[in-house]
């Protein structure tokens, strides 16, 4: 009897252990992983830093942080599910945040995903929240309520600023300066989805020598948000 007790305890412990290992969780057959890869002219980040050229001048991006939220899944053109508490803060400096595991419960095959770049207006008026939405993540404006949906900062030779810095903090949830953008990725058929964020799409449309600092909701911020949404595309397409 004593022997039996020991065996069952061991089995119990082993079971508990297994439940807690990431290995076990990863075997979830429903899971789909979205990898976001920020690049500039095809160059990825190295240790959280992208160094490249823009119009023949050197440019470096050292900060890239943004929210993806409200994931909705589609199969054969029909909505088949939504992610619960769907908020993800992605940070180029922390590679683990750039891969998002989602569980669309599709059986197999997922045709399309829709999500928001940024946070929706309800989120912006709902008071203090935790996790990725915790204001201590530095993605919240203190003096004028609202999330910073997107931060991109770095250096560009032609910026007439101190240390040639540029700083874009893009946010704002009230019309007419709403910044949240909806993005759709279609033609999906694999369990791992590789998405490039080609930032040249953004930089080609702004003149960094003139426009280099945005820190509050405005028409300019709303325009830049639109540009940012166009940087996403499935790798290889």
């Amino acid at each position: 009897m004593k022997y039996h007790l020991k065996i069952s305890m061991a089995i119990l412990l082993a079971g508990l252990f297994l439940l807690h290992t990431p290995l076990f969780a990863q075997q979830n057959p429903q899971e789909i992983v979205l990898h976001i890869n920020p690049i500039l002219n095809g160059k990825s980040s190295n240790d959280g830093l992208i160094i490249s050229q823009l119009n023949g001048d050197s440019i470096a991006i050292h900060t890239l942080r943004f929210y993806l939220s409200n994931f909705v899944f589609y199969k054969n053109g029909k909505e088949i599910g939504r992610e619960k508490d769907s908020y993800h803060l992605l940070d180029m400096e922390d590679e683990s945040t750039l891969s998002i595991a989602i569980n669309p419960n599709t059986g197999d095959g997922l045709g399309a995903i829709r999500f928001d770049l940024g946070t929706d207006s309800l989120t912006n008026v709902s008071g203090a929240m935790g996790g990725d939405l915790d204001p201590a993540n530095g993605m919240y404006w203190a003096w004028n309520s609202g999330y910073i949906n997107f931060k991109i900062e770095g250096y560009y030779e032609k910026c007439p600023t101190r240390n040639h810095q540029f700083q874009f903090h893009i946010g704002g949830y009230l019309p007419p300066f709403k910044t949240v953008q909806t993005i759709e990725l279609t033609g999906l058929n694999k369990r791992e989805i590789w998405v490039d964020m080609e930032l040249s799409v953004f930089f080609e449309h702004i003149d960094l020598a003139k426009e280099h600092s945005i820190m509050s909701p405005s028409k300019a911020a709303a325009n830049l948000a639109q540009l940012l949404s166009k940087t996403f595309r499935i790798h290889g397409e």
Partner: protein
Amino acid sequence: MGNKLPLAVLFLGILGMVLVAAVSAYSPEPVALKYPESWPTPTYDFTKNPLTKQGIELGRRLFYDPILSKDSTISCSSCHLSYTAFTHVDHDLSHGIADRIGTRNSPVLMNLAWVSSFMWDGAVNHLDMQALAPISSPVEMDETIENVVKKVQRSSPYPSLFYHAFGDSTVTGEHLLKAMAQFELTLVSANSKYDQVKRGEAAFTGQENNGYMLFQKNCARCHAEPFFTNHDFEKNGLPLDTTLHDFGRMVITQLPTDSLKFKVPTLRNIEFSYPYMHDGRFRKLGDVMKHYTQSSQLNIELSSNEKVDLTAFLLTLTDKEFLFNPDFAFPRN
């Protein structure tokens, strides 16, 4: 068969441990916000941040703790003093860290559960998020919430207080802000002479009664009962102070029609919340009366006797129980 005994002992042991843990563990005591039956239901969503004894106490401690400022010299109470309806009397513009001076007069804090737009221009859209503004303002506390969270985490007994309030000893921005909001939500002022008259427990003097009628005729459309504010932004005819260039609500909405609109402040405890207006430009209620009767924008006419009567009514909005409530004062324990 005797083998069953160890099993039973083990089972009882585990049960005992679970029970002991449950008793000393997280068991917050719910608190219901007290307010007059005749008032509307609060606009604050308590389902997202239910009031508890532990949460309120933690929030009160944080409100009085200079740990929230960069050099540990300034607490919220430096500018919001309980005995003066949580405002900073004597200063027209509030004083912050290293004697730096802000651009606005600190408002009173009361009946905040019915407010959904904060600051003189409505820059803040939720009570939870309000504390972020003074914490990070370079002329107030000059800190960052990221750093405050780290400092509070290292400072005993905060981790244990956070555990008892929220079931987690890890300090987060969310829980810190929610605790502060809980304390601020309890600041209900509803026992002035005016309230007692409304409840049939006291009577106005003839003068106060006349003042009340003048008030309803001239002031109540903006300073609406029972909060003595319509919680909206209005222009009350004050000319722009050209040293401050504060255009109020327009700064936030960028709409020209919002130029020089400011949040209508409550008039409860007005006796103690001088100096008056967003920039503290008037030191006395007499100056306020003078402004309202001289301004061409509002067409308010009051004889000097009527001004006296109206002032007598405004003084019935003083709530001594609120001002001297020991639950709101510096926590001594």
